[in-house]
């Protein structure tokens, strides 16, 4: 995930949509699973916030989940951030996806 998603400080949109698949490209069966996006500043170890993803209909859109930012989530200092996606399946198996996403936030002047 070399592309950084760009936001302005204090925004609550746009959303991020994740399409989660198996490594071979087949659809992942995530019915009953929960997905959470953990965000921290790049190069730091302190977790800033965690936001749970909203899964779409598993029958029509398997493995597709959307992050709806809450008020204050992106009200961070300008800079670079990174997020990791953690999935807990219905069996209780916890799997954190290896790749991270990059987020870049600039200051808000109005």
């Amino acid at each position, binding site marked *: *995930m070399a592309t950084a*998603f760009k936001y302005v400080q204090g925004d609550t*949109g*746009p*959303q*991020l*949509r*994740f*399409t*989660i*698949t*198996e*490594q*071979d490209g*087949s659809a*992942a069966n995530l019915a009953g699973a929960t997905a959470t996006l953990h965000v921290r500043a790049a190069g730091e170890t302190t977790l800033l916030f965690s936001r749970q993803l*909203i899964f779409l209909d598993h029958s029509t859109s398997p493995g597709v989940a*959307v992050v*709806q930012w809450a008020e204050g989530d992106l009200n961070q200092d300008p800079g670079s951030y990174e997020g990791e*996606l953690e*999935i807990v399946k219905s069996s209780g198996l916890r*799997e954190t*996806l*290896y*790749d991270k*996403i990059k987020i870049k936030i600039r200051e808000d002047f109005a």
Partner: protein
Amino acid sequence: MKAAVEILRLKAVVELIKLNISPSLADQLVFAAEQGNFLLLQTLLDQAFTSDSASLGFGRNATDVLAVVDSVARNIGRGLTDASSTADLISLSSQKLPTETTAVVDLFSASANKSPGDDAHLTDDQQFTFGRALFSDLYATDDLDGAASLLDDQEMHFTKTTSNPAIVFDAATVAPGKGLQNTASISDAGSLISQGYCDLSYFADDYVGTTRTF
């Protein structure tokens, strides 16, 4: 020959291991992310928050209604109790009305009895008044006659004579009642002879006893 069989068995085991390994590689999840405005989801979330507020309001109303229902149930129980007590009051009041009516009748009869009683007292007063007038006439005449001159006596006599006819007139009206009483006392008059010496018919006259005439 046995060695060839063992080789085939080992190959089969290796194939099974390969089959077990390959699914483990496919289990690892990957993702692709994209940024965009998924307005449908955002709109749904906004609507969900609004509907949550509305549902909270309804929930509180329903709770109040339940409390009111409990109050109503209690009122029904008390209402029956009050109704029975009211019925008792009605029956008691109907019994009191005849009682008051009889009390009024008693008052009427009592007043009727008092009226004849008063009449009797008036009759008694008239009789006593006449008795006193007769006694006063006698004392006034005696005192004035013995103390003063002749002129005075004559003047006093005229005055008393004027008052005496009135007294006599009053006595005449009262006379029928008193006359009966005087007649009874006259019948009691007679003579009393008391002696203990001998029989009363022994002597021709009262020689040894006491004789009184009344």
